[in-house]
C-alpha cells in the first residue's frame, strides 16, 4: 500500500473515532445537563441540553473534518451538508421554540383554562417551553408539543366559570307529568354539585321511550362521569331505568 493511501485511511479512521467519541460525549453531556439544570425547570433544562448536544456534535464534526485535511471545496460541501442535516434534525425544536414564542405573545390560554385543541379537550395544567400538559375529562394527563398549537386552532372555553352541559336522558314511556316531577326531583338532588340552577330543556316521547334534555351548569367538567352515575342512581332509586346519551 502506498504511504499516501495509508495516511488517508489512518486519517479516516481517526475522524471516525472522533465522531464516535463526539456522539457518546454529546449523549452524556445532554443527560448531565438535563439532570443538573432540572431545578430551573424541565423545559429549560432539556432545551439547553439539546443545544449543548448539537454544539458538541458540531465541534466534533469540525475536528473530524480538520483531521481529514480536505481541500476547501470538500470542506464547504461537507459543512453545507452538516448544516442542512442539523437544520432538519432540529426542525421540531425550532418549531417548538416558535410555538413557545407564539404562546408567550398571543397568550391563547393560561394555566387552569379549559381548552380544546385537535381532538384533545382538558384543563391546562402547565405550559412549558417545549410542551403543554392537559388533564382531560377522564383525568388523563396529555402532553402536547407546543408546535401542535401552531397547526391546530385552539378553542378556549374558559370565558365563564361554569359551562352549561346538556344531558339527554332516555327512559321508558310513562306519564309525562310523572317524568317532569322526577326530573325536577333529580335536578334538585344534583343541584349542590352545580353552580346555578339546572334547566329542563325539553321532554318528548320518541317511540316507546321518553327523551328528556336538561342543561347543567358545571364548573369541574371532570365530574361529568360521576354526575351521570349519580343521575342514573337517583332514577334507579325511584324505580326508573335511564340511559344517558
Amino acid at each position, binding site marked *: 500500500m502506498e504511504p499516501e493511501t495509508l495516511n488517508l485511511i489512518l486519517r479516516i479512521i481517526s475522524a471516525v473515532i472522533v465522531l464516535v467519541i463526539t456522539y457518546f460525549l454529546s449523549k452524556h453531556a445532554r443527560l448531565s445537563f438535563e439532570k443538573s439544570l432540572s431545578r430551573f425547570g424541565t423545559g429549560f433544562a432539556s432545551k439547553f441540553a439539546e443545544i449543548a448536544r448539537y454544539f458538541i456534535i458540531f465541534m466534533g464534526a469540525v475536528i473530524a473534518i480538520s483531521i481529514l485535511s480536505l481541500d476547501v471545496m470538500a470542506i464547504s460541501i461537507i459543512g453545507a451538508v452538516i448544516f442542512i442535516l442539523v437544520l432538519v434534525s432540529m426542525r421540531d425544536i425550532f418549531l417548538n421554540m416558535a410555538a413557545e414564542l407564539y404562546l408567550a405573545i398571543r397568550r391563547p390560554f*393560561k*394555566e*387552569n383554562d*379549559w381548552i380544546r385543541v385537535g381532538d384533545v379537550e*382538558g*384543563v391546562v*395544567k402547565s405550559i412549558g417551553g417545549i410542551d403543554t400538559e392537559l*388533564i382531560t375529562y377522564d*383525568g388523563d394527563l396529555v402532553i402536547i408539543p407546543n408546535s401542535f398549537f401552531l397547526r391546530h386552532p385552539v378553542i378556549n372555553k374558559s370565558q365563564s*366559570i*361554569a359551562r352549561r352541559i346538556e344531558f339527554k336522558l332516555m327512559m321508558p314511556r310513562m306519564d309525562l307529568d310523572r317524568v317532569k316531577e322526577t326530573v325536577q326531583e333529580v335536578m334538585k338532588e344534583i*343541584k*349542590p*354539585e*352545580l*353552580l346555578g340552577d339546572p334547566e329542563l330543556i325539553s321532554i318528548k316521547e320518541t317511540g316507546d321511550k321518553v327523551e328528556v334534555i336538561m342543561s347543567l351548569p358545571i*364548573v*369541574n367538567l*371532570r*365530574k361529568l362521569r*360521576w354526575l351521570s352515575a349519580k343521575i342514573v342512581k337517583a332514577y334507579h332509586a325511584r324505580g326508573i331505568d335511564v340511559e344517558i346519551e
Partner: protein
Amino acid sequence: MRVLLIGGGHSAYFAARAIREIDPDGHLIIIEFTREKVEMLSRTFPSAEVLFQEIDRVEDYIKENSELLDAVIAATESDSLNLRYCRVARENAVPITVSILNNPLNYEIFKKEKINYIIDPYRVITIQLFEILGAPVNVVFSSLVNNLEIASVRILNEKLLHELRSALDKHDDVIAAFVSRTGEISSSPSSVSLGGSAYIMGPREKIEKLLQLSRNVVMR
C-alpha cells in the same frame, strides 16, 4: 358547587359566609386542624360538611377529590400552607383555586405559582384611606375574573378635566360618573366643577392610561 374551604379563622369564616350567600344549596366542605374550631364551625355552618384533618393530610384529600371539587379556597392563617394547598389543587386541575393572603407582601409568590385568584384583604385599607383623604387617583376595584377596573380621579385643574373629557369621548368602552364637591352625582362631564371627582370604569389598560394621564397632569 362543591367547594373545599381550608381554615377556621377569620378569613375562612367570611369566605364561608360569602359562599353560603352565593350558593346556598352548594356542597361546602370546611377543613380545620383543631377540634374546638371544627365544633364551632359545625354549629355556625350547619349545612356545611366540617372535617377535622391533620395539616399534612389536606394535600391527599385534595388529590383524592380533585375530580369532584369545583373550587379550593385556602384561608388558613399561614400563607405557606395556603400556597401548598393551592399548588396541589392547581396541579390536580381543580378549576378554581383561591388563596386569601395573610401577608400582602406574599402576593408575588402566589402570582408566580399561577394561583387562579389571590385575595388581598388588606388592599381595602389603601383604597379606603385614599378615598377618605382624597388621593388624586385611586384604583377602587380591579376585577380578578375579567379585565374591568374602576378608579377615581380628583379633578384638580381644568387641564385634567379637559383631558378626561377628550379621553372619554375617544373610548366607547370607558364610562364615568362625576361627583361634585357638594356630592351631586352626574354622568355628564359638563356639570362637573373643579375639586370634584370622576369615577371611571372600563378595560384595565385604558383606565391605567387615564390614571397615568391624571398623574402627569397633577405632577405638572
